[in-house]
């Protein structure tokens, strides 16, 4: 198996990969421009170590993240999805993340209800000054996803 998880892969093939073995999960992170993305930046500038498995997508605000984004990432083969915004009360747009929090509360519970592993889709708050927190968060998410193994549910089967 290659360094990164393959983009298109059949469920059976995935099952042969040993969870926690050589496999590197692919994680999509939606980060708000004002806090979490800056936090990720700070983590980089500070040379804090975290797994190289993350594809960061910068969004203007965590409230911009539609549950469809998360579904689309999973359908396209992401093994994990992280959404992170400013801490409640710190939103650049005053209340964006508070509205988002309601949406994410439901999203999180709903996906688990269908049978999507809770480790797959995670939400967090990281501020611009929390480079350390960001790298810890990423390592936590990567470890969680590694534990549950490659995504099978919701992955679209394409040639």
């Amino acid at each position: 198996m290659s360094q990164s998880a393959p983009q298109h892969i059949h469920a059976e093939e995935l099952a042969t990969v040993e969870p926690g073995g050589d496999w590197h999960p692919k994680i999509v992170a939606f980060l708000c421009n004002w806090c979490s993305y800056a936090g990720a930046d700070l983590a980089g500038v500070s040379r804090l170590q975290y797994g190289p498995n993350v594809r960061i997508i910068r969004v203007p605000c965590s409230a911009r993240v539609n549950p469809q984004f998360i579904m689309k990432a999973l359908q396209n083969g992401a093994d994990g999805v992280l959404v992170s915004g400013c801490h409640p009360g710190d939103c650049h747009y005053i209340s964006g993340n508070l509205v988002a929090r309601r949406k994410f509360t439901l999203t999180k519970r709903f996906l688990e209800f269908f049978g999507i592993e809770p480790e797959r889709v995670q939400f967090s708050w990281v501020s611009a000054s929390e480079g350390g927190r960001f790298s810890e968060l990423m390592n936590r998410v990567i470890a969680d996803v590694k534990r549950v193994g490659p995504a099978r549910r919701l992955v679209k089967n394409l040639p």
Partner: protein
Amino acid sequence: MDRATIRKEDIPKLKGEGKFFAPGRKAGDATAFVELVEEPAEILYEYGNVRVPLKQVFFPQTEVLCEYDFDEITEVPLPTESIVVFGARPCDTRALAQLDAVFSPEYKGHPDPYYLRRRENSVVIALACSLPCGSCFCTVTGGGPADREGADILAHELGAAEPGAAKPGAAGSGDTLLFEALTDKGRALLEAHGELFAEAQAGQIETAQKAAAAAEAKVRELNDLGVDLGAELDALKRNMDPLFEDSRWSGLTDSCIGCGACTYLCPTCYCFDIADESRLYKGRRIRTWDSCQFPLFTRHASGHNPRTNKKERLRQRFMHKFSYAVENNEDVLCVGCGRCITACPVNLDIRDVIRAFAKGIQSEHVSQ
């Protein structure tokens, strides 16, 4: 050997090298959904009709046309497996004959290789309908419970209950079937499996004919819509076109919610969509069932839509079946199976439409 009998338990032995489809129950459905499944062990004999029509076997909901990697196309080989279908109701095989016409190279100049290939490799055994339901109106559209069109073999259950018999328990209790070969393909199947068949007795043939006649009378009794569409194709052709502007359409379509249940479950509706789906540059081109009831069906890229509202879309569905198809195909694109009636979430009933326009269609005929 044109007529022969076979025991029901031997039916699965007709399966050739390829696929075998027969009515069955799909697991996990509390509402007795029935589909033509590939598991020959549990053939269902007692059914009014299967929920998903026979078209699904030859014109699957999703068909891969080709695969591609960036700009390199890989053709998907045409289906080669042989197909035996057992137990399709005559309305469904009649619908198949209509689809044959649409997908043939003679229709508008091009063949549909996927459909045609499956049909070439198939033998379709119809099972005469002894149990017409309240929503069946096959006789109105030119068919009947023992219609032969589209089938290679017509099977009759011997010892099935008379329709409407006081005791329903006897339905389908006979364990012998009478097969009538209708085409060379049908005869070939009978010959290939000669050991399973016994010669039909005159009495058995008579029983089958009687049952068929009784079933037909039953359908006529259940649903006399005041018009015989199959017999009046010329009148239809002349009289449907002016109905395009009829003011009754909007009343007939008020309750439509615009879903595609009627068209997807219609055995004759064949409209489809072609779409690409890929991840990065690798993917496939598929075609899938589509429905004239969806606004997107006709919407131009510019946003202009020739059929903007549900009245126009519903009218299209009926005009296609009762007018355009008659002009293009010399047939009504409806076999009276009643699926659209039972599947409709709001009980919008095609029989109401036929009844509403029956007079207009027939007037000329009557005055002659």
